[in-house]
């Protein structure tokens, strides 16, 4: 356990913030547990990618953002969505293709977005949102809004040339963008070192971008770094590039069950038992007397109940009507 906020008095003052970090991480875990169950019980169409294990990354970063700040997300995007402020009901509705989903069921897990909270959307093209996040940074700079854009992507996205093109422009134009590389050690079924030559941070340092590496299982470390980079980006000191060292607990997607050929059960067990971001942060909260173990259990239970209720709601919710299939192709006048 390497949680890094100073102990003692200061913490009491920040109790509310700490509990919010805990709650947000717990929400993500609860969301994913339910999504996984929905898939395994055949109630969820398509397939989906679980964020469990990586919660401290999304929460540590998004808690440093305002609603007006923008994020772009990935195929493994539920965590980012919850962390940026989305509600369970609309999220589960989206995963089930229901009309009350954030995208009226048209996007599903891989395209979930939450415009009102500044989430420009998950993306099913690996690295595909690097341009979008950078463009959001350009808007912020051009309009002088002081907004920041965070581009979440996995280690695998380092393979996409687009990322280098946009990081170069972000650097040339000093855009307020934070490139958040979630290194969970694998892209699908391949280890990061088989896909990426050289040091990961060197990929951004090459453009003169300031880079950082942080323990992505330590929500306080992530959050502290994020607070500082966000503030600096608002002042025009961006862009920044951060490697967050983390781990995904599930398979690449919910159907990836037999995975010993590419990673061992021992490795999984090690991360889960020793480096779980929620458990460890919970222990710290108790040790710092910010909450009791019982209070934390209570939080977990309430959130799980909320998630289950949202699932029930979403299961019962209506699908979009057939007429919606031809809606939203164009925002302007209809296609003749």
């Amino acid at each position, binding site marked *: 356990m390497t949680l890094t906020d100073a102990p003692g008095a200061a913490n009491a003052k920040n109790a509310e913030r700490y509990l919010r970090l805990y709650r947000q991480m717990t929400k993500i875990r609860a969301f994913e547990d339910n999504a996984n169950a929905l898939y395994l019980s055949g109630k969820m169409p398509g397939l989906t990618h679980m964020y469990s294990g990586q919660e401290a990354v999304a929460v540590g970063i998004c808690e440093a953002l305002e609603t007006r700040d*923008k994020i*772009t997300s990935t195929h493994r995007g539920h965590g980012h969505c919850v962390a940026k402020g989305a509600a369970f009901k609309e999220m589960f509705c989206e995963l089930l293709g229901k009309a009350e*989903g*954030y*995208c*009226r*069921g*048209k*996007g599903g897990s891989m*395209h979930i*977005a939450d*415009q009102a909270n500044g989430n*420009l*959307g998950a*993306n099913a*093209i690996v690295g*595909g*949102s*690097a*341009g*979008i*996040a*950078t*463009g*959001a*940074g*350009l*808007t*912020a700079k*051009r*309009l002088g809004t002081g907004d920041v*854009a965070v581009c979440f992507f996995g280690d695998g996205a380092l393979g996409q*040339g*687009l990322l280098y*093109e*946009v990081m*170069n*422009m972000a650097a*040339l*134009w000093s855009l307020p963008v934070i490139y958040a590389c979630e290194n969970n050690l694998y892209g699908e079924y391949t280890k990061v070192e088989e896909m990426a030559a050289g040091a990961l941070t060197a990929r951004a340092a090459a453009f003169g971008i300031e880079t950082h590496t942080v323990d992505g299982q330590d929500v306080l470390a992530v959050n502290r770094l994020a607070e500082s980079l966000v503030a600096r980006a608002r002042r025009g000191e961006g862009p920044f590039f951060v490697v967050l060292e983390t781990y995904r607990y599930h398979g690449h997607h919910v159907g990836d069950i037999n995975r010993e050929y590419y990673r061992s059960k021992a490795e999984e067990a090690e991360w889960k038992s020793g480096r779980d971001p929620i458990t460890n942060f919970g222990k710290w909260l108790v040790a710092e007397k910010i909450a009791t173990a019982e209070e934390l259990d209570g939080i977990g239970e309430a959130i799980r109940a909320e998630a289950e209720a949202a699932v029930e709601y979403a299961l019962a919710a209506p699908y979009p009507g057939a007429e919606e299939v031809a*809606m*939203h*192709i*164009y*925002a*302007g*006048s*209809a*296609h*003749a």
Partner: protein
Amino acid sequence: MRGPPMRELTLSKAVNEAIAEEMRRDPSIILMGEDVAEAGTPFKVLSGLVEEFGPERILDTPISEPGFTGIAVGAAMTGMRPIVDLMFGDFLFLVMDQLCNQAAKTHYMSGGKLSVPMVLRTNMGATRRSAAQHSQSLHALVAHIPGLKVAMPSSAYEAKGLLKSAIRDADPVVIFEDKLMYQDKAPVPEEEYLLPLGKAEILREGRDISFVATSSMRQVAEAAAARLAEDGVSAEIIDPRTIVPLDEETILASVRKTGRVIVIDEGHQSFGVTAEIAARIAEKAFYHLDAPVGRMGAMDVPIPFSPALEDLTVPTPERLVERAMASLRGEPVHGA
């Protein structure tokens, strides 16, 4: 062309005016691309804009087509109206992912909550001795992707009016200028005007045969019609102006009247624009056709450099006259 007398402008100047007028009107418009600022593009289409609007709104980019197109998508999603300048239409292949997987689908995938009001300006047209990678007319590719609109101006007048509409449109619009027409002049009103996307124009009325001609193929059709007129054949010329949306009604009405039609487009013939328009006519005006629907596209070959070969690949007035006569005799007319 009724109303007060108009000055004559080159297509290049008409495009420049359209952008300048719109940028004066709407501060959210920015323009980005390679050598668009001081150089004003290799075709000098944008000369003077950076002097008026400054380098914050006329952005010179690195040679990173996927990157800056992606940035434009993100900027469009967050409040700007970017115009992307893609130096040659052949580079569309580089930006297809950002254009077709991202820009085109965002509105639909988000259930109508996000939109991408951007314009991608590029060019088309062979016979400039620019060889296979600088001569293509690739509009059919983007026309196939739902969510994009596709404009093909055939004169300075259209270039200005369609571009202004495209800039104001809520959706991603790809506009193809024929690079051989940049110095061609046409009357352009002093007063502001817009041409709607999705409305075809009858350029010349006729009784015996219809020519549906896109972009510079208008000139081929006009030359052919003039020659046919000498033989007493009266050709009607329809310029679709936009191929998405396609003004099917104007085209069908003409064909129902004349009973004969040849569709002329400079893209490769197979799996191109002539196929779609011909297929719609053959289906929906079936009982009015006195001869098979004719098609003239570019030959299905990469564009050769040699002047001795290149000119053979594109439709010409001579060949169109021949085919029109064949159609009038009831013979099938096919091939470039």
